[in-house]
């Protein structure tokens, strides 16, 4: 049976249009990053990457991402479970509240944390007298990163879990499975791709967040400089190659996560085909 849009001409036209537009719109910027980064050769690129401050920025950025993901994972799954498996007053409001980080401009996100936990904030002034510093140190960077990334996993899971409904889980529970077993054996396999996609988005944003982090970081080189902040500083220093070297690193991290996702999907589709 022929499907809609299967005529060879339509097919070729659409594929062609999609490829050309994507190449111009998405691929070209990516190529440009690497072209700029390597414009003065491999050695200059390497000198920029192996710089102490760059290495520290990479370490800090990865640490922040690594701490952010588990927090967002627990919250995302809990919230998705709550709003898709139960009906209660205020459900829709709750679901909209988690979109606040989408609605708040990153700079403002940084600002509100600063106003609260900074020296003049009502929590911050207490912290200051007890000599605890959150802002302008890595905990502050972690806090705003969690703020800007927390909706991603929940937002991926909710539509899917809503569409799937809860019949399978109800059956499992009725048959005597514990809540945890039900979640692990029934829910998790159903949502793992959405979950993974959410983690990838969270990671990408955590690694790349600039606006919010720039407000609370203090940008002390070798201490609180994340990779995107370091990139911006190199750019300010007329070191375009260095800046694009950092950009290439960030793009490379992005490509790695995208490749990991594609690889896992491919494995899953093969397993399904054989099953």
């Amino acid at each position, binding site marked *: 049976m022929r499907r809609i849009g299967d005529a060879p001409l339509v097919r070729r036209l659409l594929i062609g249009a999609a490829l050309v537009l994507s190449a111009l719109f998405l691929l070209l910027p990516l190529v440009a990053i690497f072209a700029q980064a390597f414009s003065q050769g491999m050695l200059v690129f390497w000198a920029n990457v192996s710089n102490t401050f760059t290495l520290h920025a990479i370490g*800090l950025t990865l640490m922040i991402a690594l701490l952010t993901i588990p927090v967002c994972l627990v919250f995302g799954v809990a919230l998705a479970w709550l709003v898709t498996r139960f009906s209660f007053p205020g459900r829709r409001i709750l679901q909209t509240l988690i979109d606040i980080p989408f609605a708040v401009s990153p700079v403002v996100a940084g600002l509100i944390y600063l106003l609260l936990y900074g*020296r003049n904030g009502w929590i911050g002034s207490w912290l200051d007298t007890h000599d605890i510093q959150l802002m302008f140190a890595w905990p502050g960077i972690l806090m705003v990163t969690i703020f800007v990334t927390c909706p991603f996993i929940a937002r991926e899971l909710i539509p899917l879990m809503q569409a799937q409904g809860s019949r399978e889980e109800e059956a499992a529970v009725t048959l005597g499975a514990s809540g945890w077993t039900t979640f692990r054996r029934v829910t998790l396999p159903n949502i793992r791709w959405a979950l993974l996609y959410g983690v990838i988005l969270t990671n990408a944003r955590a690694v790349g967040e600039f606006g919010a982090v720039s407000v609370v970081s203090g940008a*002390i080189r070798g*201490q609180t400089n994340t990779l995107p902040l370091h990139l911006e*500083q190199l*750019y*300010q220093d*007329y070191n375009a190659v260095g800046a694009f070297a950092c950009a290439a690193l960030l793009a490379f991290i992005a490509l790695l996560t995208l490749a990991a996702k594609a690889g896992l999907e491919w494995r899953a589709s093969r397993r399904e085909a054989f099953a």
Partner: protein
Amino acid sequence: MAMPVFFRRSLIALALGASVSSTAAMAQERELLNSSYDIARELFAAVNPEFQAWWQEEHGEEIAISQSHGGSSAQARAILQGLRADVVTFNQVTDVQVLADAGLVAEDWQEAFDNNASPYYSTTAFLVRKGNPKGIESWDDLAKEDVKMVFPNPKTSGNGRYTYLAAWGFADQAFDGDEEQIQDFMRTFLANVAVFDTGGRGATTSFIERGIGDVLISFESEVNNIRSEYGSDDYEVIVPPMSVLAEFPVAVVGPNAERNGNSDLAQSYLEYLYSEDAQRLLAGFSYRVHNEAVVEEFADQFPETELFQVEDVFGSWDDAMEAHFAGGALLDQLQRR
């Protein structure tokens, strides 16, 4: 998540290593934090090792110096909110004043060091393309019909603010204080801006790499650095016969320095900027300095020009900010089309 365990472990080790090493460094030696403006990174990268060596020689103590750089206002804001910088080296008097108003910097900070606590100074100058095809020599040439210029947004950048004030100061003298004529001049002047980047570096990129505009306006020091960075054959530096005095104020952030046990260090660090060695370094970065020996040495680098103080034309910085740059004030009115 199917992240291999060894990968995860090594990442955690890396991350912990990063935080441990920085705390370890603090435990071992005293560390001074200098909060500075954006484009001073290379400058202090050159000054700091000199000071460290000098301090080591004088006091036999090894110290570390950390740098934090950003827009001058953003830096001041960070200190207000708890960034524990020991000293500030800014490019805006108003940004130090904000700290003084909050009690973080001594009330009389401008008297704490020589020359209004400004160890070096500069002015606004022009960078034009090879051969100066539009014949730009002074501010009135910038209000001509076919001239397009690039300078950072006065709303977001101190650099841009100086440019605006310099042009106004020029017009004030040229039209003998006739407010209407000054405003007409400023309106034409502002209409010739091709791009308003948020910061100095963005403006440079627009002018050099994107080829926009006939003239880039920035600090004299910055304009000279750009020229040597991007090829002295393709660009020329023009210092107008009259311009604004741009001070680069420094101050000790008292409470922070005390808390970090760095009061003596902070004071010496800023005093060191007035030493002949430091002044020579500063002049090498095209900043104008006060030390007479150094001034003589670099005399041919800095064309003579008449510099007026912001206070002379606008009363005070506060008045200038309120009358010109506040929301809905003169700048906003002049730009309305």
